[in-house]
């Protein structure tokens, strides 16, 4: 009984020979490993797919076609539609930013929501500052600094790029009502 469990036996010339049992075990092992691998590999690969996925593509949004057409010294509100993709769900969201330039070359962009409670603020032409109609928060146009009212932090500035005289911003939303600028 014990001898039949041996994988190999000594042949007549003393060389090791694979027994029938040994061969069958070997075949079984190979088969099992191959089967597990050909199905297991794609299954695990698909499972960890989100980790393998390439970083999300560049999400700069074009907010103005031509800088020459933008007013200098007066902020403009630009609304745009952004496509967001969450796995198989695609949705279009409407967002807005305020653009401001003092020289027509360097641009500032602010998230269109007041940092207090998220109302859309407006440009107050009379006082030349931003005014939030909800609780009368006031912000400086050139820096986003809080001039008056309850807002806990300056306006949320966004990254801006000018490429071929078009203006792009990297749109982000931040948590509102708190003093720190934390991405939502």
């Amino acid at each position: 009984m014990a001898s039949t469990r041996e994988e190999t036996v000594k042949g007549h010339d003393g060389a090791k020979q694979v027994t029938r049992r040994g061969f069958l075990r070997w075949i079984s092992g190979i088969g099992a490993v191959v089967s597990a691998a050909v199905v297991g590999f794609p299954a695990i690969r698909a499972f960890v797919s989100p980790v393998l996925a390439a970083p999300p593509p560049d999400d700069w949004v074009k907010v103005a076609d031509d800088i020459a057409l933008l007013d200098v010294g007066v902020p403009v509100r630009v609304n745009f539609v952004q496509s967001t993709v969450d796995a198989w769900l695609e949705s279009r969201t409407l967002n807005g930013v305020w653009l401001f330039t003092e020289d027509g070359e360097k641009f500032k962009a602010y998230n269109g929501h007041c940092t207090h409670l998220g109302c859309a603020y407006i440009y107050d032409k009379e006082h030349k500052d931003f005014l939030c109609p909800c609780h009368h928060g006031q912000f400086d146009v050139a820096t986003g600094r809080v001039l008056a009212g309850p807002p806990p932090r300056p306006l949320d500035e966004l990254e801006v790029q000018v490429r071929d005289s078009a203006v792009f911003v990297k749109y982000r939303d931040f948590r509102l009502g708190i003093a720190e600028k934390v991405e939502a």
Partner: protein
Amino acid sequence: MGAIGRWLDKRLDLASIRKTLLDRKMPAGLTWWHTLGSATLAVFVVQITTGIVLAMYYSPSPDHAYDSIRFIERTVASGSLLRGIHHWGASAMVVLVVAHMIRVFTMGSYKYPREANWILGVALLCLVMAFGFTGYLLPWDQKAYWATQVGTNIAGTAPVIGGTLVTLLRGGSQLGAATLARFFALHVLLLPILLGGIVMLHLVIVVRQGIAAPPKVLEEDAPGRTDDPQYAQFYDAKYAQSKASGVRFWPDIIAKDIIVATAVILLLVILGRFFGAGLDAPADPTDSAYVPRPEWYFLPFFQLLKFVPGSMESFVAIGVPTLLVLVLLLLPFFDRRSIRSLVHRPIALTSLGGVTVACALLFGASMSEAPHTGIPQEVGHPLTSTERAGRVLFDQQQCGSCHAIAGRKAPEKNADVPDAPELTDIGLKHTAGWMHSYIEDPTRFHPDSKMPAFGPPTLSHQEIEELAQYLATLRGPHWATAQPEFRDTFPEPVKPKEK
């Protein structure tokens, strides 16, 4: 056995488990046909593995099911391959279960003492078919939608309970969101539990009873019938004798099983990789031109219903499958002769031959009637809601009674119907904008045109636009490569009427 093995053995007595499961003796003379059961089990494991990962990326709602399948196909790493394996695995399950059943049938292995395990096997066959039926709907494409429409309606033809049954299957009176959620729950929750449980039981019984010895061994000097009081004793003696000269389960039998299982799995991976699972256009309840066809293993049955007059339909549609299952379930009880070889069982041989030939003929007939692939009406993208609305208008306004579109129902030629241009590839010839103007008032383009003007109040501008958008998707048989050459010429602007 390593240190961990010894540690566990001391506590769990692994050695005796090994003895019962692996070292047990098998009857002599088992063939390669005896590997079909374990190959089915292997594919079931493949289906579980691939199914779990697919479920992670699937959304069982009509709004998102199709998109989530496309996400699997396009974005998930190896997603298309996994779906391909799962799709072909379903077919393999059916093929293997049926082949295994035929093996057991031809060798008379369902006879004493294996009647109970045969019954479990019949239950497993039904469950595998239920898996196929519920899984087919999940991609929520045209194929899925229409095949399920027909499939659930078949249940609806059942006498008395038909209406209740179809509502129960669909989770409502219409095929829709509740149906999809229901089929998903059945496919991934209930059926796997049932199938898994019964497979376990099936295997426990196999280990307990051992695999049936080849027919010849159990026929020599046997009492004529298995309900003969002497038979049990005879059987035990013969079976013990056969086992004595047989081989051990491990590794002799397992090696054979693994070789076949590996070959099947490799085949599935190759099919999955090179043929994939396919995905039709999204389900479209308004498409009257779609010819529904079920998955191939339901085709013989599907074809059978075409030959049945309406009055007999419910009898055949419900009766034939029910009868088939009943016959299979009762088989071990009305066939108690101890003879096992198929050659000595003329009725069994004739029945098996008859059913096989009938299925083959029906299958062949349904293949020859396969709808020649009509012109894909979609230009590489699923129709948008505007375009679909246009197609509905096309039918409502009966544009098709004058204009033909290849692949859709041809207009009936009546003497009083004027000849109208075919619209099969109109999308290559004219822009949607031009068609909008034309449909609105054809006489502006051709003063003697027989086509009525469809401008307001017949159709609103929005409706005409939908119609034009739909027509623009018609790009003929070579839609994938054809380049449009627009020949839009507009009539001279109409001079404003003088006030």
